[in-house]
């Protein structure tokens, strides 16, 4: 239990995927312009991360012990097709959910946070429960970072940020300061 808490908090706050591991920067810098979108993208990513954790656990346990060299290719193929399959299922079962999250799914599947999760979970030898916790923590952390970023970016649009700095430069600076603030979580629940 203690371990699971640490995995969750670790992936969400201490080693936030975006702010400490630099995973998923494209959506983080590209899609965080609007709060609403960011939040939904965060949820969709969490969902795909969860699928990924399950898929990669399955692959690790039943396939890759025999053919470790297929790791990369099988991750990509299996995750992409599973997500596609689920996307179709959601479209059928719940058009509302599809409308809210579905449009993001194709965008996410090739994103490095997804692949990164699979690789990290494998490298660390996480079991099923640990993998799922890791995915949930990473997803929560990603969503948190996206939402905070989006709130701040919406604000920078109405204040007098100098023209030279507008755009990616100020976004990176915000991310840098946010990442500095997240350093405060270092060592959370690992000491004492």
């Amino acid at each position, binding site marked *: 239990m203690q371990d699971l808490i640490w995995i969750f908090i670790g992936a969400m706050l201490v080693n936030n995927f975006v702010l400490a591991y630099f995973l998923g920067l494209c959506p983080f810098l590209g899609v965080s312009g609007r709060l609403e979108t960011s939040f939904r993208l965060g949820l969709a990513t969490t969902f795909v991360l969860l699928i990924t954790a399950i898929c990669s656990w399955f692959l690790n346990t039943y396939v890759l*012990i025999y053919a470790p*060299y297929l790791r990369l290719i099988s991750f990509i193929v299996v995750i992409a097709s599973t997500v596609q399959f689920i996307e179709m299922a959601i479209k059928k079962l719940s058009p509302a959910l599809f409308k809210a999250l579905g449009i993001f799914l194709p965008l996410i599947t090739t994103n490095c946070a997804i692949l990164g999760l699979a690789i990290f979970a494998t490298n*660390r030898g996480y079991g099923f429960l640990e993998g799922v916790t890791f995915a949930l923590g990473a997803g929560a952390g990603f969503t948190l970072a996206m939402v905070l970023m989006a709130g701040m970016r919406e604000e920078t649009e109405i204040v007098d940020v100098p023209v030279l700095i507008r755009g990616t430069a100020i976004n990176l600076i915000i991310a840098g300061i946010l990442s500095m603030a997240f350093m405060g979580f270092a*060592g959370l629940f690992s000491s004492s």
Partner: protein
Amino acid sequence: MSMQQQTPQVAEPSPQKLALSVAFAGLISGLVIISIFEATLPTITANKAAELKAAVFKVLPGVASMKKLQYSDGGLSERTQEGADEDTVYGGYNQQGDLVGYAVAGEGPGFQDTIKLLYGYLPEQRKIVGMEILDSRETPGLGDKIFKDKDFVANFDGLAVDPQIKAVKKGSKSAPYEIDAITGATISSKAVVRIINGAHAKWDKRL
């Protein structure tokens, strides 16, 4: 040569043809991957073994050879097959082939991320004789002193495990089971201690 050359517009290919082309590409790719894997495997395995050996020899000074041992059914036995490393330790043997001590692996949360380490343990003397960090992402210049700071690493030479090892403020080490923590990296120092204590608690009875 024309710059604007486009992929020629062919009539809609049949699904079979599409699947075939993907399968073909997959096949080729699989072949390439297997060959590079086979080609590099010996080197990689050798590198890994050498690295492990170096680490074991480092934490168990005076050892000439090592064996991978597995704990199962209440006893230790040599382990041969590859795969998961749970419940394994490394036995270190001297020139004569007598068991000197064990190299035990442990891991746990550090300041930033998981720390993985290996320590050498002499069961007869109930002493730790060396410690090596295998993997960590502690802060450069601070937390990374757990393997870069010679004084700190030297703490683990001849360290008593009873009742339990303990980190104290630098310079105030007084008992044989105490280590001097690194100033400014107390958390990392304590994490190392906690990982060793954890691993020791698990292995104490088994060795």
